[in-house]
């Protein structure tokens, strides 16, 4: 069976033009996807690398069990906790996220996603300054100046350049690449920088200064310094003029900007730069979001609870205070007494102090394959791959929502994240609950 227009549920580029051939419930061919996207599709065949059976820890060891027992144990852990942490969410569907938010609310727990360790600072900056952006098709049709700052899409988002920014022909950019200019700002000459028309090497941790210098020029000030952040004055003025004189400019920025010294202040300053530029021309910006549905989490939590991440439902309503309610802070203060981790591996990626606490408390892990996190969990529930084995919704990095497809069956007995959440919710509520459930979002 050949499927066209399939959506790759790997990175925030969320390519929707993939062709996949499935035979006997095995993916035998993948067209148009990049190397990592292809690998994700093919990995669904390799059941030996998947989690297939629910497990619970007995006498210190994870042993296989029935789904019902695993769900009962998980619900028991969550229900008896005073302040459970529900973490992960960026690599699953909005439907699962929605059910997870309802679960967090029911439990009075804290819910947070990987936003907290990637573009959390961008979100904080948006609170300060707003966010002038556009959809990626606008870039393709109009942009004549494309800047990647602290981002290396050749590796992180391989098809970003060819689908949206540099290579494609657009309505007003009929000749594609030759109608555009690519500028890369980074601390080292990345592979993306190698194909750029201009590479600007900024001193490590001095992005803020460079942005300020650009703003100074854009706003008509005189730059007196010989160089700023390691960039000579002449180059800064040239870049600023390029930005002011283009017809449609776009600033893509990555973790090089959000996670380096200055963090949300960098982004705040960059937003102000883009705003300043709009006095002269059209300019927009776009964070290079990593996980394919990290944006979806903020959207769903935004419309349901009013905040984009790190929400504590302990008071019966949504409380948001990054630095207090963010996953790492809750863990490092030793505040949560149980955790549920879904579609994420904090044991590999969180600071040691957080992991130490995670190891101490009862832990439920839901994932498609084993990870260091599932290894230390007390309950492990396997789940199906959204976008391959189950349907659902995901938001591209520019917030364009797409419907993920199902192209093959999940392994036997393996449920979707959404269904697992729904079943946990039902168990946590118990039969005596008086809450009238809104229609289940099973789609």
């Amino acid at each position, binding site marked *: 069976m050949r499927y*066209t*227009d399939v959506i790759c549920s790997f990175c925030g580029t969320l390519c*929707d*033009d993939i062709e996949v051939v499935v035979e006997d419930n095995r993916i035998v061919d993948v067209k148009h996807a990049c190397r990592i996207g292809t690998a994700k599709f093919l990995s669904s065949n390799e059941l030996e690398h998947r989690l297939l059976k629910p497990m619970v820890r007995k006498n210190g060891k994870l042993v296989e069990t029935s789904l019902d027992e695993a769900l009962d144990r998980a619900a028991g852990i969550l229900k008896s906790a005073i302040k459970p942490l529900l973490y992960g969410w960026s690599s699953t569907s*909005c439907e699962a996220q929605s059910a997870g938010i309802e679960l967090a*609310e029911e439990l009075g727990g804290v819910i947070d996603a990987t936003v907290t360790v990637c573009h959390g600072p961008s*979100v904080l900056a*948006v*609170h300060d*300054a*707003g*966010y*002038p*952006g*556009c*959809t990626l*098709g*606008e870039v*393709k*049709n*109009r942009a004549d100046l494309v800047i990647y700052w602290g981002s290396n899409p050749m590796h992180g988002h391989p098809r970003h350049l060819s*689908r*949206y920014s540099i290579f494609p*022909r*657009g*309505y007003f950019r009929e000749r594609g690449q030759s109608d555009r200019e690519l500028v890369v700002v980074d601390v080292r000459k990345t592979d993306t920088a190698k194909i750029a028309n201009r590479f600007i090497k900024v001193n490590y941790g001095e992005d803020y200064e460079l942005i300020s210098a650009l703003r100074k020029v854009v706003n008509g000030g005189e730059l007196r310094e010989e160089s700023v952040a390691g960039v000579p004055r002449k180059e800064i003025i040239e870049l600023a003029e390029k930005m002011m004189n283009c*017809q*449609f400019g776009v600033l893509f920025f990555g973790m090089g900007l959000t996670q380096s010294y200055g963090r949300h202040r960098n982004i705040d300053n960059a937003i102000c730069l883009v*705003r300043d530029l*709009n006095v002269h*021309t*059209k300019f*927009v910006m776009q964070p290079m979001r990593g996980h394919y549905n990290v944006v979806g989490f903020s*959207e769903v939590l*935004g*419309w*349901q*609870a*009013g*905040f984009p991440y790190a929400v504590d*439902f302990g*008071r*019966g*309503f*949504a409380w*948001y205070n990054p630095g207090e309610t963010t996953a790492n802070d809750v863990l490092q203060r030793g505040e949560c007494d149980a955790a549920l981790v879904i579609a994420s591996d904090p044991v590999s990626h969180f600071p040691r102090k957080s992991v130490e606490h995670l190891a101490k408390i009862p832990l439920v892990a839901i994932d498609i394959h084993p990870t260091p996190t599932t290894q230390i969990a007390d309950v492990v529930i396997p789940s199906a791959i959204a976008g391959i084995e189950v349907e659902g*919704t995901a938001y591209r990095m*520019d*917030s*364009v*929502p*797409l*419907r993920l497809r199902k192209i093959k069956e999940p392994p036997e007995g393996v449920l979707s994240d959404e269904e697992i959440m729904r079943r946990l919710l039902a168990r946590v509520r118990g039969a005596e609950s*008086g*809450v*009238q459930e*809104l*229609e289940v*979002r099973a*789609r």
Partner: protein
Amino acid sequence: MKLILKNGFVYDPINGINGERMDICIQDGKIVEDVENGRIIDCSGKLIMPGGVEIHSHIAGGKVNTGRIMRPEDHIKNVFPKTGVTRAANGYSTPSTFLTGYLYSKLGYTCAFTAAMPPLMARHTHEELHDIPMLDKGALTLMGNNWFVMRYLKRGDVELAAAFAAWLLRAAKGYAIKVVNPGGGEAWGWGRDVRSLDDPVPHFDITPREIISGLVKVNEMLSLPHSIHLHANNLGRVGNYVTTLETMELADGAKPARERQTVQLTHVQFHSYGGDSWRTFASEAESIAKAVNSKDNVIVDIGQVVFGDTTTMTADGPMEYYLSSLTGLKWSNRNIELETSPGVTPFIYSKHSPVSSVQWAVGLELALHIKDPFNVLLTTDHPNGAPFFKYPTIIAWLMSAKYREETMKEVHRAAQRNTTLATIDREYDFYEIATVTRAGQAKSLGLEEKGHLGPGADADVAVYDINPEEVDPGRDYRLIEEKFARTSYTIKSGEVLVKDGEIVRVVNGRTLYVDAQVDESLERELMRDLDYYFKRFYSVNLANYPVQEVYLTNPTPIKVETGVR
């Protein structure tokens, strides 16, 4: 479920019922002549109206959520912990989806249309509508800066434009054609705007005038339930009433295919300004009202301002940028490929500000100068003029000259000097309030089963604890304000959802969308063109664009026979 609402004072303008004391009978979610053994709800001494119908409110979708995410400060206000019935809910000018449903229901509303859905983002809008309980709902669908629309109209191919509009409503699961700053949205793709009906749209060689008249034709060819819903050019600009008057003339471009207007000019308060600078900023509400009074194919909704902190959000990107450059407050923007360019920025309407004070007066002037209340619908363009839950305050202003006078004393004297509000002594009665909050909306939207209480109507009813024989709204305006904020009962599809101002039951409403079909060969021609264009210029494939019905709660297509070929 059978219900009898006994002995209330009924206000049902569509059926000409003006405060008669009567029983309303309900069976199987509909109003019926008579019912046996129904549960009786005693409504004596209470006022009964059809469920409120919201015609223009930004309650769901990308820019609403951008507002929420940009403004955490808005969500520490107005906080409601979860109860045994309701979810945790919060937000003031950008309430969460749950709170939106709860608050509308408490006001006695049973149906709401979100004001501006970009088709590419329609799936998001529907995801949010899905999570708005208590209401039937639908979405006005943005077309005024759509490349296909502009191309087809430019080459004079109205049929193909109509086929496209029909397809787009089906694909986006939309209800009506919305036009926002026609041409200006596209110009904003280059950081520009259009400033008059005859300013050409860059690269598309078409003018706002041609887009509007073209879409009026398209709308009537398709015989859609609603007219085009038009946010005119130059919103919020000093002296913009000239553009507004010119725009009204374009309503004459086609004969209405149904018993309704051909153009609804929306939030016209923002389009009724005279003067030539912010210093001479003045009301031209009277000129606009005069034009509305003299035409039978244009209606307006007000877009009333209420003082306080709010979040402005429109598909009018250049306007939002302009506004944020005046205030210096944070600003979000998202140009949407081939379609539109929404923006969001916070705003504070201050009683000390001459401009805000005039804006406040302009809305009320419009409502009071326009004679037929079916032609002037109550909106705040939520949250642009104010959050929708300020409706009771506006109702009280409309019903009480004294209340207006009291407020006038508190605001900047520009409201007195530069508007006619202080000279108006008209006061709305309950019949007129029922018209501007539900009957007029239902008529404008072509919703035959809403906005009235005749047999066959949806059993959507609001019961307010007001005894019209005892209350004098002109004097007791505080009471009016208080009682319209919390119904005694809100009944939707025959179920009691609110009792004594508290939510007692949470339900999912229906999602209404228009399913209009055109001739097959025309459709084929359209699909060939769409195919070509999507491959080249959209960033998503055509196959992934249409919104699946699974996103809709109780999907309810409204079939329309168009005969377009």
